[in-house]
């Protein structure tokens, strides 16, 4: 056993975070202030998500951590190791096998179940912050449901670019009341937020927690003549051939070579194990066979 209290945080801190989570679930989309602690990692590395996960974990949980959909990036690996060490919980890379999934900037492709919890790492929880820098003002705007400024911003997008150019952290309205920042997930993921799992959002530096209960109404802001569109790269995954997943564009060489791959590594791996193959994976295995002959 390690020399840490279970899940690193002391009990009084966890109670404070747990109270904030419960109020967040009772007022979906509202940002509950909490006394964020310093964590043994820098701000911007998911200190808010880590604190929410620490207050939510039980020894029986299986934890999955993803960063931009990937299980094997630095941020994901270090947070997974952190909880292996301080909470002794089991970890997994399989979406279906996890009971708690901490995520940075993606929602897994696989549908989540009622017995799962999705914890988001949030850098700037206030959707109005880049339009109005004062916290006193934005708090007043939320209390008065004064969201005209956000619509003006989306309108200016259309006036300038001919379409709503916001492609990530696309603002949503929760249960017809609070406008909420979904964290910097691609807008492709926005429709998935009406899900069966509990969603918790933690912003460490900004000291805010917010939450969405299951089956909560989450609507992406738009206009009648410019409806919201969940967009992705118009391509199939070059590794697994999936046409329904969010893709990363990877530059392969200096002469314009590129490939598109699923950002959700577990989804891509699962499909390849099931025998699906994308264009570049097929070409590579054909070339490999040729050299073998």
């Amino acid at each position: 056993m390690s020399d840490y209290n279970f899940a690193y945080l002391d009990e009084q801190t966890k109670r404070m975070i747990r109270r904030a989570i419960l109020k967040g679930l009772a007022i979906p989309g509202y940002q509950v202030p909490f006394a964020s602690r310093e964590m043994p990692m820098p701000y911007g590395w998911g200190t808010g998500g880590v604190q929410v996960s620490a207050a939510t974990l039980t020894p029986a949980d299986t934890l999955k951590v993803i960063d931009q959909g990937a299980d094997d990036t630095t941020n994901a690996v270090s947070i997974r190791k952190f909880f292996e060490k301080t909470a002794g919980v089991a970890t997994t890379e399989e979406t279906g096998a996890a009971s708690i999934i901490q995520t940075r900037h993606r929602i897994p492709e696989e549908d989540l179940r009622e017995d799962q919890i999705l914890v988001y790492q949030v850098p700037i929880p206030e959707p109005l912050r880049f339009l109005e820098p004062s916290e006193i003002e934005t708090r007043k705007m939320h209390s008065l449901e004064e969201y005209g400024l956000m619509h003006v911003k989306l309108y200016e997008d259309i006036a300038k670019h001919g379409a709503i150019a916001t492609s990530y952290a696309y603002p949503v309205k929760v249960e017809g009341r609070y406008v909420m920042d979904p964290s910097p997930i691609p807008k492709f993921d926005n429709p998935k937020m009406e899900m069966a799992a509990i969603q918790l959002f933690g912003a460490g530096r900004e000291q805010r927690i917010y939450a969405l209960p299951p089956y909560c109404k989450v609507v992406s802001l738009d206009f009648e003549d410019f409806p919201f569109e969940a967009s992705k790269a118009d391509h199939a995954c070059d590794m697994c051939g999936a046409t329904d997943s969010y893709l990363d564009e990877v530059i392969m060489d200096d002469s314009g070579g590129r490939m598109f791959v699923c950002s959700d590594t577990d989804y891509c791996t699962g499909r390849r194990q099931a025998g699906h193959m994308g264009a570049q994976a097929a070409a590579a295995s054909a070339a490999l066979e040729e050299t073998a002959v």
Partner: protein
Amino acid sequence: MNTEVLKGGFGNAPVDAAYAFRAAMKAMACPGTVEVLQGAQPPAPVSVAAGTLLLTLCDPDTPLHLAGDFDCEDVRAWVSFHIGAPVVAAEVSMFALGSWEALAPLSRFAIGTPEYPDRSATLIVEQEVLAQDGMALRGPGIKDSVTMALPETGAFQMNAMLFPLGLDFFFTSGDQVSALPRTTKVEVA
């Protein structure tokens, strides 16, 4: 000194509290579901579930109101030793524990402010049983609708109309807990 008071806390606080919180969170996220909540052995008339909720959520930072029969020597001593929450009047409480009748009138409790709707009281209502029939509930956390027995209808309809302000409720009986946040719409089924 009455040493009975020293008993009944969590055996393994970090782990017991973690499981208890998950049950409480599931109950609050999915109104109408009944979860098992164990770990505490509080003095009568406090149920196991209510005592476990207090141990999980309350501490010296959370003023607690004990209503009616729950405001007795044994409970005060147990709260004081295990939790350390100041026992206060309803108006200034963050948490309150009692029977439905003793907690009335609900207008005494804090419902939050427009800027800070989270600064509202959470009421723990002790009931004889938690029955899953009666009123129809709709709202966040509920797929279509669920049914749940509530002590009355009007008070919860009024509370939902205050949204985003309002009170949040836990209902406890024995080692069972269910919850009703302010977002839930209650109708006579």
